[in-house]
């Protein structure tokens, strides 16, 4: 039985980490869910690459941060913040594909 990430997480967000990177945080509701997802490496490069249709080389890092029961994903921005044709200067609305993750 699959479970939706939105049931396990209390925060799913994106934001610039400087003008050249986008960073996404998944903060879990409880340590049990976090530990399980972390142990199974359910949030991995292959998944992020598929969700955002980007090559794995553009995924800078996926880091587990135990104190916040959080998983952090950082990717290279397709366009630098504020460049002509770029659509989200703060990078705050690039999280939606993560809402569809089923575990």
């Amino acid at each position: 039985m699959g479970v939706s990430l939105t049931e396990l997480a209390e925060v799913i967000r994106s934001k610039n980490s400087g003008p050249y990177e986008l960073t996404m945080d998944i903060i879990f509701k409880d340590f049990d869910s976090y530990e399980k997802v972390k142990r199974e490496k359910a949030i991995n490069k292959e998944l992020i690459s598929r969700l955002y249709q980007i090559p794995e080389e553009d995924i800078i890092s996926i880091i587990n941060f135990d104190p916040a029961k959080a998983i952090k994903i950082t990717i290279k921005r397709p366009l630098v913040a504020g460049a002509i044709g770029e659509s989200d200067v703060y990078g705050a609305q690039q999280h939606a594909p993560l809402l569809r993750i089923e575990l």
Partner: protein
Amino acid sequence: MQELKVLSPTAILGYGFPEESFEKGLAQHPDFIAVDAGSTDPGPYYLGAGVSFTDREAVKRDLRLMLKAGKRLGIPVLVGTAGGSGANEHLAWNEDIVREITQEEDLELKVAVITAEIPKAEILKKYEKGKISPLPPAGEISREDIENTSRIVAQMGVEPIIAALDNDVDLVLAGRAFDPTVFAAPCIKAGFPAGLALHMGKILECASIAATPGSGSDCMLGTLRHDCFILEALNPKRKCTVTSIAAHTLYEKNNPYKLHGPGGIIDLEETKFTQLDDKRVKVSGSRFIPSEEYTIKLEGAKKTGYRTISIAGTRDPIMISQIDEILEAVKNMVKDNFSHINNDEYQILFAIYGKDGVMGKLEPQKNANPHELGIVIEVVAQTQEMANTICSFTRSSLLHYGYPGRIATAGNLAFRYSPSDIPAGEVYEFSIYHLLTVEDPKEYFPITIKTMKGSE
């Protein structure tokens, strides 16, 4: 000294704070008041054009309360990245606001102004010597990139701010500064550990964003001891929890364990977050690891043209079903009509809200079937006049374009505004995001001491 107390009124100077929260902070006898006034998040325009992204009246309101409180308690006020981007024009803008406040409130202030803009000629010299390296994923820069950049600032570390505080000033007005520095500098000057001081600064620079419920417009108090620091939200409606503080450590950074700054790294591998009571969190174990070479981060923006936009919508399902083809055809009509203008002198872009206006290339839902679409016509050209001309022609062509199967023959677009076209002015892009290796951390951040007096 056993402990130092820091009052952080708001996440960005000009974002505001309730006076009740601020007074609660003052009642705890803080040793200084500090605020971050800037960010690169609002984009390259503000740095390039020398304009603040914060509002003048709002900045003045916050600063007036802070300066009066500082004077009343006899404690210094520190402002980092003044004017939003921290270049010389931004500093002058903020200085002007301070001068007005001293006149209106009849205050006398000893002010240290620290500049952070570096002349292009100096950057070019360092570039030739190989002292400038890209901060990935930003790429290498060329001589030309530097020459074309409108303004270059560097993020200062704590050293220039400590030097400014040595002059016993009422206000430190710093240009571009690494966000935590205005909070950490007085603590490091007083002999507290740099790792804890900087980590506390990293959290306090966002004020109550780190509390729950979070807010960018409310006060926080930090208490630094030699082995830990304690965070406290000053509004009774908010509290600091281990989760809210730990989660904030993730915010806007790519790696929560290692925060790179001027001259070294804040290392959080050993950091412990402890709930002290239902409102306060204690943090310990954060360390500062100095790097072998002292580097400062450079930020620059260059002008790429002028923009005009027109905002419209369509509610026609026949048009929506072939929107991509229609927009391509309209682009070609414009090109044909202005064939005497080189193609590289202007760009036509369409942002299609309801399709991929928010995520662009990253949008995974390719086949959405919305009942209406928002269309922003955007033209960037070498002059404002040309941007106006191309945008106007694109708008009228799209309005009346006869696409296959068209039934609604009176017009293809719903305009919300008259005039429909909005000249949006200069367009900038980030052109430099690189590291500069320096011999002396204070080298590029000269300090000027001034007295600002009310009754002049």
